[in-house]
């Protein structure tokens, strides 16, 4: 049985969530590995969300927003556009592979595109294998003799 | 027969150390090892940081002498920017740094060193601390110690904005200048600090030199080493703590070498042993010969005593008087008696105060031209200053974007690791005799050896160990015999 990546999707309410809905109503098949969260705008996506998702076991994170110029709130997606390159740089410094976190513009009519992106990303992440972040952090907690002893004592 | 005995923790020393003493079958000391069990990694995690950030990162190597790292770092960064620095900035930095020396020397002398002499080397450990000192010399002096330390720190704050964890030096100079109002305040304090430096010398004369037992320990005890001396000097071969060339002189007074910072790698190398995280610097051109004394030894020490040993004179007049008095008393220049380092510290304090007085009278010191915008990144710099505990070297390289590509640090106390290791063995051999039980007092007398170096193992290991866990294991005939532990 091959590894099934857990991908967290953060989609903006106006364009990309509607686009994803369209994929659904059109019965377009796409990988079930994505778990979707809806936010009002891609500007709402705080880098903290990506870090939290990764630290809690997500193998990948997909952020979707409206195409530049089409943001329901006029300029929100530009904020996402500016944050993302810095976030990628930071993730690289922290040893997170490039393909695990992705930003895509998806319009309300791009149901097929959404499905294509999800399928492509799922395969890329599958090839990378499970993210080591959560297992690393758990191992950090348990790999010290004193810590292990304390856990045994409290068990 | 094995017994474990716990002893008082060492409180007048900074860092983590472990001493192993091996006894032969008769109970005489056969071998000792002074081990340092910690490391931090500044030399690695500074890589990748913008080079101008390093002066504010390396201060966290040590919270007792952050200014030393800040200055050495600033000078290494200066080098990376082609040494383009506003001249007034150098004066301000020197002034700030001399103020730092004063409060650090005050703290070391009164809190760390004095208890051994004022209370006595084998006195009750519970009182053998700064409170015991104050009890003996009086509350007025105790109050003056606190007040003087505060004045020197406040001088730093007025000049450079902070006194712990310095924030002030930048490429091209410093971030702020000195106002006339602040200068007036500093002038007054400076004169008071000069008086306090002279008072401290008087206390040393009255309490230590007037006591025959102490003088005997200083002159005739096992606290001496025939190794070479290192210190920073100006063009007159007088000590300069902020800027100059490094001079190395053997224990008979002959100059071995004198080098400018960029040449340090031709003269100093670091030897590694598997049993200590701390490296052992030595004179590179002589090669590593082991932990041996002698005129050909490649071991050197870098302490207040060695700074005065390599100097032909002091840089200021009253300090020169104190210098002459000291060497006349200890039997000549240079001097091998390690405990004289405590005296040397006080002589330095006089020069620190006189230097401050000189700057207070310098009309340029309140100039607003305290920084320039550097025009080029040249990519490499070596900054050498004297930390209170010895010659401190920071060597950086950076890329064309000013991002650090390497950092090499040889820190004050690191220079002294081999001498500390050697003198510990010497003292242990002299004091732990076959048939005697090593006691609390004897242990303290072993400590007095490394304490004279005012070691800072936080610095030396570029690590942040904090406490002074100390473990002493005594082995007899290869078997564990006795163990002293504190904080372990």
């Amino acid at each position, binding site marked *: 049985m091959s590894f099934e990546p857990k991908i967290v999707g953060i989609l903006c309410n106006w364009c990309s969530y509607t686009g994803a809905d369209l994929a659904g109503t059109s019965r377009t098949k796409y990988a079930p590995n994505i778990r979707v969260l809806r936010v009002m705008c891609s500007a709402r996506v705080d880098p*903290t969300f990506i870090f939290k998702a990764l630290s809690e076991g997500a193998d990948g994170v997909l952020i979707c927003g409206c195409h530049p110029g089409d943001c329901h709130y006029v300029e929100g997606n530009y904020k996402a*556009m500016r*944050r993302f*390159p*810095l*976030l990628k740089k*930071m993730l690289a410094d*922290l*040893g*997170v592979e490039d393909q695990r976190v992705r930003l895509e513009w998806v319009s309300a009519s791009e149901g097929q595109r959404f499905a294509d992106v999800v399928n492509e990303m799922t395969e890329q992440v599958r090839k990378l294998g499970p993210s*080591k972040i959560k297992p690393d952090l758990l191992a950090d907690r348990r790999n010290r003799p*004193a*810590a292990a002893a*304390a856990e045994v004592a409290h068990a | 027969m094995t017994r474990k005995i716990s002893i*008082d*923790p*060492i*409180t007048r020393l900074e860092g983590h150390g472990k001493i192993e003493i091996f006894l032969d079958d008769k109970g005489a000391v056969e*071998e000792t090892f002074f081990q340092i*069990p*910690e*490391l*931090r*990694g500044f030399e*690695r*995690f500074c890589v990748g*940081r*913008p080079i*101008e*950030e390093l002066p504010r990162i390396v201060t*966290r190597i040590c*919270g*007792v002498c*952050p200014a030393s790292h800040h200055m050495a770092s600033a000078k290494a960064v200066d080098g990376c920017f082609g040494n383009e620095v506003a001249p007034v900035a150098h004066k301000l930095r020197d002034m700030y740094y001399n103020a730092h020396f004063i409060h650090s020397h005050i703290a070391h002398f009164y*809190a760390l060193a004095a208890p051994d002499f004022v209370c006595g080397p084998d006195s009750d450990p519970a009182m*053998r*601390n700064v409170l015991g000192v104050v009890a003996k010399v009086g509350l007025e002096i105790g109050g003056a110690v606190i007040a003087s330390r505060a004045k020197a720190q406040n001088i730093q704050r007025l000049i450079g904005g902070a006194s*712990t*964890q310095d924030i*002030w030096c930048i*490429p091209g100079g410093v*971030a702020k200048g000195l106002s006339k109002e602040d200068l007036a305040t500093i002038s007054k304090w400076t004169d008071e600090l000069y008086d306090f430096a002279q008072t401290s010398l008087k206390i040393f004369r009255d309490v230590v030199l007037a006591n025959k037992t102490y003088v005997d320990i200083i002159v005739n005890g096992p606290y001496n080493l025939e190794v070479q001396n290192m210190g920073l000097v100006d063009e007159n071969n007088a000590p300069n703590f902020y800027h100059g060339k490094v001079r190395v002189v053997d224990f008979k007074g002959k100059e071995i070498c004198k080098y400018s910072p960029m040449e340090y*790698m031709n003269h*100093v*190398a*670091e030897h*590694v042993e*598997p*049993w*200590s*995280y701390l*490296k052992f610097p030595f004179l590179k051109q002589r090669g590593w010969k082991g932990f041996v004394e002698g005129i050909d030894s490649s071991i050197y020490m870098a302490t207040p005593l060695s700074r005065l040993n390599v100097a032909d004179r002091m840089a200021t007049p009253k300090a020169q008087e104190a210098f002459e008095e000291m060497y006349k008393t200890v039997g000549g220049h240079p001097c091998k008696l390690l405990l004289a380092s405590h005296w040397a510290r006080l002589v330095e304090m006089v020069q620190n105060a006189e230097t401050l007085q000189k700057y207070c009278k310098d009309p340029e010191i309140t100039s607003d031209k305290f920084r320039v915008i550097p025009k080029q990144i040249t990519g490499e710099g070596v900054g050498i200053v004297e930390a209170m505990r010895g010659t401190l070297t920071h*060597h950086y390289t950076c890329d064309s974007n000013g991002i650090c590509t*390497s950092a090499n640090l040889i820190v004050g106390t690191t220079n002294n690791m081999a001498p500390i290791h050697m003198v510990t063995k010497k003292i242990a051999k002299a004091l732990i005799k076959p048939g005697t039980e090593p006691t609390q007092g004897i242990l303290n007398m072993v400590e007095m050896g490394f304490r004279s170096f005012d070691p800072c193992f936080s610095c030396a290991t*570029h690590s*942040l160990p*904090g*406490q002074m*866990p100390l473990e002493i294991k005594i*082995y007899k005939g290869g078997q564990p015999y006795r163990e002293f532990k504190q904080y372990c």
Partner: protein
Amino acid sequence: MPKLQIAIYWGAACGGCDVAVLDTNEFILEVGKIADIRLWPVAADGKYSDVEKMKDKELDLTLFDGAVRTSENEHLARLLRQKSKLLVAFGSCAHLGGIPGLANLVPMQEIFERAYLKNASIEPGNTTVPKPESMVGPYKLTIPKFYDRVYKLDDIVDVDYYVPGCPPHFDQVKAVLGVIASGKLPAKGSVVGCTDRALCDECKREKTEKRVKKFFRPWQIVPDPNKCLLEQGVLCAGSATRGGCGVRCPNIGIPCRGCYGPPPNVVDQGAKLLSAVASIIDSKEPKEIDQILATLPDITGYAYRFGMPSGLLQRRHAP
């Protein structure tokens, strides 16, 4: 009224926090009147074995500064937790991991290689590295084993309060000791000795609108002393940093680097600073955005200068 029993202990520390307590000068003598300092390596004679002999919760208060790097640090953290009613994480290292936490960005092997094999002044031809156990002739020598990464105090034990700063400002130290002495304790887990706002609230520089076309390194411009540093393109972490330090750095024209940790309710200081910095970039063109970001090197080092272990990812996770 019985005297308070207190301990001040340092883990993987530089000593600056202990110096900050000493910097309260005469106040320390006041503390001496109301408290017995049972353990404080830098200034008092408390025996380690005394701590072991103490009853549980015999200490009213322990101030623990420094990060946790070795098994010894961990052992003392657990011991002091057991023996103390209140355990305070004192200073950036105990609170967030501190500057030592930057080591979490590099693999431990590289630290060793750089220190013992590759550095410029290492004895030519050296291949020796320190080992936990080694033999020199007939003598066996040991040194402690290190953890592969840095931990903050509450990764190891339950912490009652946090006092931020590198070091905590000495006025704040007085305030904290005063609060504890008064008995009117804040809610457990509070961050004390600071304000509950971002540093910008205390900073007297003029703040208008932030639109940045280029970032400047601190040496590239002489900033206007009256205007917000970030608005002038100098990266300052103040907006993602808790106040309470007296604005000591921006007051002399040096940008904040975040030593007081995140403002209230912020989980990841580095993520917040990233977000804030990106938001003020004045461009909508991807190429221009990249050019502007190129003037900002080492975002990770800026964002997590004092708190890598406290970020959600805590460290580098490279293969």
